[in-house]
């Protein structure tokens, strides 16, 4: 690996999704893949911007891309699916629509090609193509003793570009986890909506959507859900108690990041992989991942 991957954390990985950042950094460290956080990065422009004022969203993306170019990153990693999508979309639109190109022109000193040269990538795709299940398998140091998990990909990483994985029936997370010895269940909701920001705006609707996911995952025999996106993770993780209150159904379903499980399999440290930050299914998490002696502190 010649130059470091540019790393664009976005707001989530510094906030609600900090466990994602912790596990991502740990995992890449274990794989000797250098990551360099983008200096002076700004909001990716996703969701709220995108729905209210696309042009500003693209402006924000363009600046981030320009920074990546300045730091001469060939690849820019965007772990949050929303960031990943809006950055890709900005590149796509500036090629498709002259007006967008004009608006973004000022960035990259009017040379849009440099903004397009940057490969915007999701860590899942990076691990799958640049490392791959086989090389990963050789690096496994911890034997899996947990239950089977449901891989949940969400929508933004796979659609519409289908570059990070197959757009309707993604498999890469399943294959990587299988390589790490983790049994995954086959289910149909891999890319169904997690509720997105509806949990904030139309709360009932949003919660019902991630209730559907939890229910189906459980029905298919999954004891945990594994995600690639901080928003999905948050939605599925945070409302389980509320769902219990409303439906009487108790899931206690751990909702983890794929980076956490892979990191653990490669011998990563419990704390530095961000496990203690999980909300739901802490018991299971402790059983599966915590070193016996630290099981207690795992609760705090």
């Amino acid at each position, binding site marked *: 690996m010649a130059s470091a991957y540019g790393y664009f954390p976005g707001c989530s990985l510094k906030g609600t999704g900090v466990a994602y950042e912790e596990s991502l950094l740990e995992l890449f460290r274990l794989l000797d893949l250098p990551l360099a956080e983008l200096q002076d990065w700004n909001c990716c422009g996703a969701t709220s911007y995108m729905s209210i004022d696309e042009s500003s969203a693209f402006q924000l993306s363009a600046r981030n891309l320009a920074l990546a170019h300045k730091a001469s990153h060939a690849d820019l990693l965007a772990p949050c699916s929303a960031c990943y999508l809006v950055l890709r979309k900005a590149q796509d639109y500036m090629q498709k629509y002259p007006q967008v190109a004009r608006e973004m022109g000022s960035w990259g000193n009017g040379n849009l090609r440099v903004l397009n040269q940057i490969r915007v990538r999701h860590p899942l795709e990076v691990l799958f193509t640049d490392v791959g299940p086989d090389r990963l398998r050789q690096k496994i140091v911890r034997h899996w003793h947990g239950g089977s998990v449901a891989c949940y990909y969400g929508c933004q990483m796979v659609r519409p570009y289908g570059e990070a994985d*197959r757009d*309707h*029936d993604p498999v890469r997370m399943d294959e990587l986890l299988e390589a790490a010895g983790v049994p995954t269940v086959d289910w*149909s*909701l891999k890319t169904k909506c997690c509720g997105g920001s509806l949990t904030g705006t139309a709360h009932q609707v949003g919660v019902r959507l991630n209730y*559907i996911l939890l229910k*189906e995952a459980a029905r298919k025999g999954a004891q945990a859900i594994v995600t690639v996106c901080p928003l999905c993770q948050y939605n599925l993780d945070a409302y389980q108690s509320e769902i219990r209150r409303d439906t009487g159904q108790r899931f206690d379903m751990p909702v983890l990041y794929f980076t956490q499980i892979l990191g653990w399999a490669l011998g990563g440290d419990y704390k530095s992989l961000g496990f203690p930050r999980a909300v739901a299914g802490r018991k299971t998490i402790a059983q599966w991942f915590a070193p016996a002696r630290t099981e207690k502190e795992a609760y705090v």
Partner: protein
Amino acid sequence: MSDPHGAVRIGVYTCHCGSNIAATVDVKALAQFAATLPRVVLSRDYKYMCSDPGQELIRQDIRDHDLNRIVVASCSPHLHEHTFRTALKVGGLNPYYFHMVNIREQASWVHVDKAQATRKAQDLVCAAVRRVAFHQPLERGRVAIHPDVLVLGGGIAGIHAALTLANAGKHVFLVEKEPTIGGHMAKFDKTFPTLDCAACILTPKMSAVRSHPNITLWTYSEVTRVDGYVGNYKATVLRHPRYIDEDLCAGCLECLDACVYKQAKVPDEFNMRLSKRKPIYIPFPQAVPQVPVIDPETCIQFKSGKCKKTCIEACGDRHAINLRAEPEIEEIEVGTVILATGFQTFDAARIPYYGYGKYPNVYTALEVERLVNASGPTGGEVILRDGRKPQTVAIVHCVGSRDENTHRWCSRVCCMYSLKLAHLVKEHTGAEIFNFYIDMRTPGKGFEEFYQKLLNERVHFIRGRVAEVTDWELDPGEEGKLVIRAEDTLAGFVRRIPVDMVVLATGLEPRADAPEVRRLFNISCASEGFFLERHPKLAPVNTFTDGIFLAGCCQGPKDIPDTVAQAGAAAAEALALIDAGYVETEPNTAHVEEAVCCGCKTCISMCPYRAISFVNEIHKSRVNEVLCKGCGTCVAACPSGAVRQHLFEDDEIFAEIEGVLSNA
């Protein structure tokens, strides 16, 4: 210098084509402009030049104003050049004293600004006027038509075309890729809207083909090479070995029972892999020819060489089985070709969210055709892969049709066959049936009535494109079922309907090998990949290559009645050529001015048809105008301008170039 065209008197005719041209090109101004051009003695504009009065106008003016050159500015020469040339002929003028200006397809229809369109039309007319002054009287050549016909594809289209021609006394070579003729239709149980049994109407025609003295049937064969031109095609046919001699085999099929495989183990292609066959098999009971095939991929003898060869024993002294059979090459000469290579159904696995290949109870329509078929894998029982009889069945329309992500076209037959299958499945199972459709398209004799009939049979129709076929359940009622999620656009909400069986009404698409066939016969494909007809309305079974005709779904999706009609039409077109005995060829051939040819031989390597030979005695090249197809490549290549092309003389083309640029 004196005017070389002193005697030239040109008449220019500008066509309004109703408003097709007149709306965007100022035809009056164009006609007035033309009148000012040198050697133009008459310029008119008229509503429809191609109409009889329009042509009469030309004929009359030729007499009254002794015109000797005619320019018509109207539509594409591909549409009416012939019409107007004939008009000249009738008017007593050589038909090649004519030039056509395309101001419709290439001006009025593609431009929006009237001034610009008119200016362009003027340039083109000016070019034509300058060009036509150079035109010379030309005669069309004649090529004899070989009376035999090659029909490629043994589906209902090929069968019908072959029989029509054979009954007219012409010899037909019918070449089919599969081991049997019958095509897709042979797999159907019943046909819409009459519900008559497909086998009952098809198999008599199949055996007629087999027994017809005028038909040479080559199944399990492919055309690998085609040379020549209209009236004189040479085709090379590769006959794959079926390892059973068609002439010696009596069709007793004892070899099948004798095969060392007691149980059939190989997925049966004819039954859409819903059943198994043996390595030695016959595609289906009524197959034509009634001769088994050995599939070397799965036959023990071919794989290991260690088989008891019980099949050969069973065949006994008929000695019909020859495991050493080699591919055979047949060379045939035909005058005309009918392409009836058919279609393939859309691969439902390309749409992951419909679950084909993932959920065992999702079927394609063609699979269900076999299920409901009495001679099918289940003997006509509609049962799921796990043996259950479905209680509820969903039929999903437009799978791989009318979809930006797959194919944009409507496959025309799916609505109707979905109705048919709905009827048959209900008949066989009494199941509750849901049709999910975008629009019901039932244009055709008795089609709408059939739709009404189905409505009365209480089959449900839900107007809405299916979002997904899935297995995730919301309430216990859905346990173990497939759930259809679709917006009911009439009721205005999203529905979840749990069913036991899903039928995907897959659309029709061009065969994967269509591009090779197209190249082989030197014809074009339309953008979606079906073979391109010469004109959608006026020449629907012709191609741009003379003597090659289209029949059936290789030209586009169509149902059986349309296919048979088109096959008849293709046969008729071929017959017309054959019975005329000859075809007139365009005179735009190349010729060498021997007096000035320096014998450099440059032209000879230019010709792909070996039409140019070198005459050593006089040390000059010579063009065989029968072999010459008139591309003009040798003309461009001749270094000293000794090779020329009728209708595309240098003078004519230079005049055209100067013409279009006259007001540059």
